[in-house]
């Protein structure tokens, strides 16, 4: 189980602002093996979310290379990166990011539908049952509570059959109890699907459940 799924080399992110160049990430080197659970922690503005976006192929670094499951993301165009995301990656976000015009079931079906999987609907049903929303498949996001919405998002993340699951503050918008349940659910499914989990958080309890904690400060890895 020590196959490397993510490798970042000298990753930099610099954005131009009115006051000049702003360095967000400054020479990040990182390796994550298959099956690892990794928490990226740090203060607000430390660059952890930017790093997550770059590792997941949502954004490109200004310098350095990132490879995801053996593919050098920095040498792919957005078209190819999208395909890699569709095949390898699942996401859970702080703000859930469900499509408001789709029911819970339809949201979970999306990854399958994008792949052209004929079993998308059956898969989605199974996953929703698994996250405890079997009775609410026809509901729209606005009819669900925050915890329920996040469960739909988790079901959708696993519907991609991802090798790597990225989670950005998955409990940030939830109360402690609900957050705890969501954390349990993520880890449970992570084990079941044998997924590599990379999450950004400043929730210490969540970070402490991960096998490895990477702390970022000022765009650098400090621990």
């Amino acid at each position: 189980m020590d196959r490397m799924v993510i490798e970042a080399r000298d990753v930099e992110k610099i954005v131009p602002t009115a006051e000049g160049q702003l360095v967000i990430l400054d020479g990040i080197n990182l390796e994550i093996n298959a099956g690892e659970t990794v928490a990226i922690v740090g203060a607000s503005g430390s660059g952890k979310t930017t790093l997550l976006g770059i590792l997941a192929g949502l954004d490109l670094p200004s310098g350095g290379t990132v490879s995801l499951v053996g593919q050098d993301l920095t040498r792919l165009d957005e078209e190819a990166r999208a395909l890699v995301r569709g095949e390898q990656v699942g996401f859970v976000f702080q703000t859930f990011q469900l499509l408001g015009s789709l029911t819970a079931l339809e949201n979970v079906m999306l990854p399958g539908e994008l792949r052209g999987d004929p079993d998308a609907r059956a898969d989605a049903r199974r996953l929703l049952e698994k996250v405890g929303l079997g009775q609410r498949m026809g509901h729209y996001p606005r009819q669900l509570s925050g915890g329920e919405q996040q469960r739909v998002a988790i079901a959708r993340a696993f519907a991609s059959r991802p090798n790597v699951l990225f989670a950005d503050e998955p409990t940030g918008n939830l109360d402690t109890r609900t957050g705890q349940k969501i954390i349990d659910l993520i880890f449970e499914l992570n084990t079941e699907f044998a997924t590599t989990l990379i999450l950004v958080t400043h929730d210490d309890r969540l970070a402490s459940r991960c096998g490895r904690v990477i702390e970022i400060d000022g765009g650098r890895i400090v621990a």
Partner: protein
Amino acid sequence: MRLAFILRLAWRDWRSGELGLLLVALLVAVGTVTAVSLLVDRLQHALLSESADFLAADRYIGSSRPIPDEFRERATARGLRVSETLSFPSMVFAGDDRNQLVSVKAVAPGYPLRGELVVADEPFGAGHVTRLLPEPGQVWLDSRLFPALGIGLGDTVEVGLARLQVAGVLLAEPDRGGSMYDLGPRLLMRLEDVPATEVVQPGSRIAYRLLLAGGDADLEALRAELPLAPNYRWRGIRDSSPSIGAALDRAESFLLLGGLLGVLLAGVAVALSAHRYAQRHYDHVAILKTLGATPTQILQAFALLLGLVALVAVAAGLIAGTGLHLAIIAVLQTLIPVDLPLPSLRPFLLGAATGLICAMAFALPPLLHLHKISPMRVIRRELGAAPPSQILSYGAAAAGSLGLLIWYSGSLWLTLWTLLGSAGVLALFGALALLLLRGGRAVGMQAGSGWRLALAGLQRRGGQNVAQIMIFGLALMLLLILLLLRTALLDEWRSQVPAGAPNHFVLNVTPEQVAPVSELLAEATAGRGELFPMIRGRIVAANGVDADTWAAEHAARDGEGDGPRLSSERNLTWAAQIPDDNRVVRGAWWSADDPRPLVSLEQDYADNLGLGVGDQLTFDIAGHQVEVEIANLRRLDWESMRPNFFIIFSPGVLENYPATYMTSFYLEPANKRFLNELLSRFPTITVIEVDALIAQIQSIIARVTQAVELVLGLVLASGCLVLIASIQASRDGRMQEHALLRTLGGTRRLIAGSLAVEFAALGLFAGIVAAVGAEVTVAVLQRQVFELGMQLHPWLWLLGPLAGMLLIMTVGLLGTRRLISTPPMLILRALS
């Protein structure tokens, strides 16, 4: 992405109402354009065919010589329907001592090719339409000829050497009043009886016409192949009656312009809805991308989605447009008693093309832009996207509208002026609106009062509001332009034949009869009874050069030989004062005590003959040579239906020559019998009746007016749609702000008041923009396209801003009332 999946996406979008506004905007674009062009198409055909009634044919070939058989044969060979008429003035005799000057029209079978004959069972009886003609050996007479000749149905009358039986009462025929030979009580007879009368001799004043009816292409082809010049004139409604021709031309331009503005407005509505749709899909696309959708897939999906929406909109729009125009026709059936011909295919093609082009040019650019949305947006909300390519968006919209408009109007000029007017005004007033909003910038939300909250809001969303003012302003401006042009056109048309314009002329009044005729006319009619002296005379020399030689050297003659001849005998008159409706354009009118022999010429007449102020003319009047100098040139209004003269002498030149007098007067249709009284008291005078001619002009103008009003109404409706779309497009930002305020304790009254003030202010600015834009554009359009005089419209400066304020406040408050009544929590959740 597979088609099935895209269809599912489309269906889910539709279910959520997201696609609704775009679909509705496209549908309305297609529907309005289809309905307007269907109406225009059918009204235009109806107007033309009704005007053709006025000729009793689609075209005719007229001459003072018999029409060669070859013409008839070639027309028949082309599949055209033909008939013939021959008109001449003649005395008709009844019994031993009764006679009357009549205007004879002899017609061949098939007459009239367009329009209908109206006959009555007894003189002055109720009319009904007939498809029959007098039999050979029979005549039909005007009602008033019966008492004038002392005859009844079944009696015989003599026309020349022929004895013909009176078999019918003729009330109206379509081409009555078609020429100046042709104004008098009518006698309708068969062409084959004409030889027996022996009145047609060399030199007789006879108008021959070959009437033609059929398709435009065939008619034009015939025109091209016949040797018409110089003796035969080809005439359609436009050249045979310039006033109707001009009215039709302007109406056509107006209808086109109306439809054109409808297209523009619809395009703006589509663009606005597409932008809103795209904006609301930024998150949607970002999420799809994180789930693995590639930019190409996004591009394909939205292009296909739009294509699908466009197809549905076109299909539904065509149906809706057809239904709408049927509904309008049904509602207005009482106003439009014409049988509308079936529409051509063009309106449907135009409607469909409008939908597709609007979709491509106005809606596609913002949607295409969606594929560039960064997936990082799921983590960082603020990552929108680089704004859509301005060049692509505006370029596509400009190219799309230009193409559509040119195709629609068929007129590059009309299109360019409209677009230039709109663009120029938008640029200028974008800047002005920006200044207005920037002035006195306030800090914070200023939530203390609805008034200050609104103004602060206006400034905070400055950029967005400038855009909105420009869009509101554009819509209002287009509507005002249409309103102004309509008013100008209707005024112009109404003034052409004012109600109560003279509809009868009296000629051959002797000097002794002047006083009694004048008195009788003043009694029985509303006429002023002013009589003009009239003397026949002709020009024999100009500046000492023989008239024919002068004409050959100086006259600007066109090929068809229609221009006035210098040496023709003309009606001359004299006057101390310039007649009403005349105005001097060169030289000066004479003073009362000027002893010189002077003359005044009509400007076109003088120009055609190469004559100007200061030239010397020699007239032959009753065998005497009279020398005069041209003192001035006049313009006169030929449509005024008053006696008009090419040539007016100064007082003191012609008084010693034998003159007859003429005048014109207005007679109510119900008082036609007065003519008999007039003619029986003064049997030697001649009355020329132009009431039928005037009635026909008026009826055509009434129809044209209705068409114009209809189209105006339709375009107004689509203008309101733009306003709604525009308010909808800006709703989200307002909603969020106001919902937030309400959670912080803002009352509904505060929010409603602030919204009212905000919309009113937007409307006010937009109204100012619109008034200025409309004034400028209309001034240019009036000069360049409609050839009407320019004028300022002070009322517009009040109406524009006021109407803008009320309209936008009303539509705006209606559009956002949900915002005020929905619990703020729901709004915030829906928007998050």
